[in-house]
């Protein structure tokens, strides 16, 4: 099953490589990983998407917790949560297709954030499958570049990941 693991980790150099190294050394897979400092600049928050059986996920969370720099973590899949991913897409545009691309972006609640005579850059956020659907809906020929942040998430309600 797919799991989203959110981690609060000391904002020290090398912290990211400890997490990444753990995954490669133990043969766990990482589908995506995002990391940035939090409102407390001594802490970074990482969101990691991985897949595995319950036993594997249990080992992953235990091994992550064992890293000395990891302060706290939660497996978002254990409770109701929201998740969002950010995507930027660059598409080639021609006079005939310009309007169609714009309409499509609108339907998916994307924003056009850069325009040239021959291209658009579209910004879009949402659950990962919505982003997949948008990319699939675009004409393959016109697709120039796609960059995705990987999902981030938060549990709903009062529950949260903080100190």
């Amino acid at each position: 099953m797919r799991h989203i693991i959110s981690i609060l980790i000391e904002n020290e150099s090398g912290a990211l490589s400890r997490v990444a190294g753990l995954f490669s050394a133990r043969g766990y897979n990482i589908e995506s990983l995002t990391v940035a400092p939090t409102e407390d600049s001594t802490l970074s928050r990482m969101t990691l998407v991985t897949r595995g059986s319950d036993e594997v996920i249990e080992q992953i969370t235990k091994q992550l917790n064992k890293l000395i720099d990891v302060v706290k973590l939660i497996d978002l899949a254990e409770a109701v949560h929201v998740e969002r991913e950010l995507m930027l897409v660059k598409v080639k545009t021609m006079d005939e297709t310009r309007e169609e691309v714009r309409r499509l972006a609108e339907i998916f609640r994307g924003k056009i954030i850069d325009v040239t005579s021959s291209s658009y850059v579209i910004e879009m956020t949402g659950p990962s499958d919505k982003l997949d659907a948008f990319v699939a809906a675009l004409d393959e020929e016109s697709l120039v570049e796609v960059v995705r942040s990987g999902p981030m998430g938060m549990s709903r309600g009062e529950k949260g990941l903080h100190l």
Partner: protein
Amino acid sequence: MELSGGEIVVQSLIDEGVEFLFGYPGGAVLHLYDAIFHQQKVKHILVRHEQAAVHSADAYARSTGKPGVVIVTSGPGATNAVTGIATAHLDSIPMVIISGQVGTPVIGSDAFQEVDMVGITRPCVKHNFLVKDIADLAVTMKKAFHVATTGRPGPVVVDVPKDITDPAIKIPYVYPKEISMRSYNPVVKGHTGQIKKAVDLLLNAQRPIIYAGGGVILGNGSNELTEFAKLLGYPVTNTLMGLGGYPATDKQFVGMLGMHGTYEANMAMHESDVIIAIGARFDDRVTGKLEEFCPYAKIIHIDIDPSSISKTVKVDVPIVGEVTAVLKEMIALIKASNITCDQKALDAWWSQINKWRDVDCLKYDYSEDIIKPQYVVEQLYEVTKGEAFVTSDVGQHQMFAAQYYHFDKPRRWINSGGLGTMGFGLPAAIGVKLAHPDADVACITGEASIQMCIQELATATQYRTPVKVINLNNRYMGMVRQWQEFSYQSRYSESYMDTIPDFVKLAEAYGHVGMKIEKPIDVRPALEEAFAMKDKLVFMDFITDRTENVFPMIEAGKSHHDMKLRVAPGTPIDRELA
């Protein structure tokens, strides 16, 4: 007090009460060595290879319970230390390794003798630090000792760039008395509800067994384990790392379990209905084929590291906690309980175990013509009255040592179990002897292993550590040859060396006493003579049977009840129990 970075490192070692610093100098640590020169409190032991520095410090830690401390220079000094660090890591040994690093301005520029020590050691340490600011140095040293020695112990590397130790830059020195880290809070006390559940399960068991490992030794829990086992009257087995955690000569002890464990220990594991694992990590050398591991048992597991629990074998009652604290609580609960164990079932269980014991799986044929390695270990046990500290290398001799030297006390059996590092034995013996100058220290080794750190014979001369080297010389990498005999139709590919040095001359060259023993009848007197030479390192080269194998053996992929024995068991096994 204003100190330079180099002085801060050394002063923090003094403040930690460090007795010995095992190391080897070089460019990046010259400032540190100058600070070492200016003090008398911490004694530096100059080894002949950085790997040995780590093994010596590691064995010092294993034999005393105090952290071992090492200093090496950057680049090749640091990489030479890695095998030792990984060895300590896999056996959870508390250590602090200080490595020199190139100056901070040139880090990352492929400077002379630069390696990314933090990167290289990340997978084989409990934690590591790169100190980038002299202001962090004292706190980092404190954290290093704290992390190394608490929770599940392990090695911690502190990588110190040369400019941080510059004698010209001094700052006020305060060594923190205590430290707390928000990201690191090891559990001590076990969950009371789980402990109660475990005690219930234990008291209702019909065929119980206690499977105790290295965690009992690391957590100083031998007394509690013994009291616990005595209270219940249940059989006890130890892992290779747990030997000495329960007195081997006690009648409840059924020997080591696992690949080269005893018949009775493995059969009892296989047939048991309740297992309590205490500070043991279900290593593959212990479990054999996982699908067939202990098919009838409910399993309780006490371990300080949550990730050891249900890692390979799913357990029924996990208890995360410190072995001593948890056992104390269990003992109190058992004493207070109004349930008592089913004595009839227990008697039947013991009579079954005794039948397995009658197989006498460690029996071997004494020979008058050729020295059996087992015989040497047995005689060593008698001559040292079971009181010696025994270090070992890796191979058949290690298994013979584990099987035939009966350890009644913890921290006496010092070996590399997890990594299985050849070369460990001799530097380990030196580390132990420094910590216990009045004790007998024997290093049981093989002619291949001993050559991996043989240069330490010089360190032993310099620091007058009169250990006894028991070389079980079978002219083979015996353990490799054994596997080749069983699994590769005796194709002995590269498992022997065409030339083996004259160990007697070699020992003498280093200023020691050498002995070559070729006849069984000479074994005992030679050992007595050697151990009577209290102030001499004696290298005893025992020419042993080349073809001897270690039995019992569970071959790879087999399960506990599927053991290869030296002789087929004479006693039929009561299968009804299953």
